[in-house]
């Protein structure tokens, strides 16, 4: 599993590997929103945490189709599948690599980007905390979606379609906790739910992803 994880990380930082691009996408979405909704500071600071959550989610989404599709195209996937590593572990390694190359940088980048959206001071720690808790779930769920669509050429959009409704609970609890935290309201419930979703997804979805990969390799 370590071999696969290391290879994926190495591929991500090589030319054309896509590291940093989801970050750039996140930046750009955040920048575009004020152009589109107008520059009023109070509107922006109200919708800020939500926009950053949606931006992070979309940036995650965009990088998902690289998860298995590249290995599928060049034939690495069947070779990995016949290796001693079970497909469930393959899925988990891919999810971890994905989180390290997108979820983590997005979380770290959210705070500076918040400034662009006139976030209030109290919002920042909550935003970062909820993203840190929520992005692993996004990576695992996304890996499942990517495994589901691996046989489909350029299935990027279908992947988005399948994955986005699965992202809804994570988004709701994450954005809600960030919003409540910023307003000083009670946040224990959404935070616990968010953590629960992340843990549950981490525990169960790699198995679903493995099963689905096996079907797709037939």
């Amino acid at each position, binding site marked *: 599993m*370590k*071999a*696969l994880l*290391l*290879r994926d990380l*190495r*591929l991500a930082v*090589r*030319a*054309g*590997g896509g590291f940093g691009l989801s970050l750039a996408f996140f930046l750009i979405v955040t920048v575009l929103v004020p152009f589109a909704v107008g520059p009023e500071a109070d509107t922006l600071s109200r919708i800020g945490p939500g926009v950053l959550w949606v931006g992070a989610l979309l940036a995650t989404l965009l990088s998902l189709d690289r998860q298995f599709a590249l*290995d599928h*195209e*060049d*034939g*690495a*996937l*069947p*070779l*990995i*599948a*016949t*290796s*001693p*590593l079970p497909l469930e572990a393959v899925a988990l390694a891919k999810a971890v690599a994905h989180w390290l190359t997108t979820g983590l940088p997005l979380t770290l980048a959210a705070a500076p980007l918040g400034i662009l959206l006139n976030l209030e001071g109290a919002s920042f720690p909550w935003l970062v905390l909820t993203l840190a808790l929520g992005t692993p779930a996004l990576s695992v769920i996304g890996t499942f979606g990517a495994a589901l669509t691996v046989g489909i050429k350029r299935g990027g959009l279908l992947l988005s379609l399948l994955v986005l409704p699965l992202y809804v609970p994570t988004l709701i609890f994450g954005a809600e906790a960030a919003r409540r935290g910023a307003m000083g309201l009670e946040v224990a419930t959404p935070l616990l739910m968010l953590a629960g979703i992340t843990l549950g997804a981490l525990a169960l979805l790699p198995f679903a992803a493995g099963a689905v990969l096996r079907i797709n*390799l*037939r």
Partner: protein
Amino acid sequence: MSLRVEGLSVARGGVPVLDGLSFTVEPGQALVLRGPNGAGKTTLLRVLAGLAPPLAGRVEMPPESAAYASHADGIKATLSVRENLRFWADLYARPWAEGVLDDFDLRSLAHRPAGTLSAGQSRRLGLARLGVIGRPILLLDEPTVSLDAASVARFAGWLRERHLASGGLAVIATHVPLGLDAPEFDLSRFRADPMVAGQGSDAAFL
């Protein structure tokens, strides 16, 4: 450590392709699959490799002993030749032996990103994976495509003297002679009979 196939039927995309195959390959032996284009060589190899389920019949071999190789070798263009091979060694938890680079004439290319290799060079890299992962049962689909005569001879030599001689076995689909002294198995005699009711999922609907 032998490969035993009994009464095997295989299908592709739901269509039965081959029917009633039985053969055994013993350690140290190679079996060459022959048959015109579309006979079902690729389909059969994928079933043997466990990538597709058989329609009927049995494939017996020790678990985790087979390696499959086709045109798509899973070569990562941005990794160097050595990095590509080391990844496979690590994934299969095998020690890294620098010697494979010589076996497959890749020493002078070891530092090149794999994406800059010529067709034959990257085929050699794909074959070198087999030397790295050390699986005893090789399932090879047209392994010598794009190779020049010298490389074909070198690969056949490796197969004979390194792989088969150490108790491995191989099933090889090919259209060109490899210069191996191995029995040939002609698949055209096993074409699934179109008039026999379909097997697999079609059967339920016929």
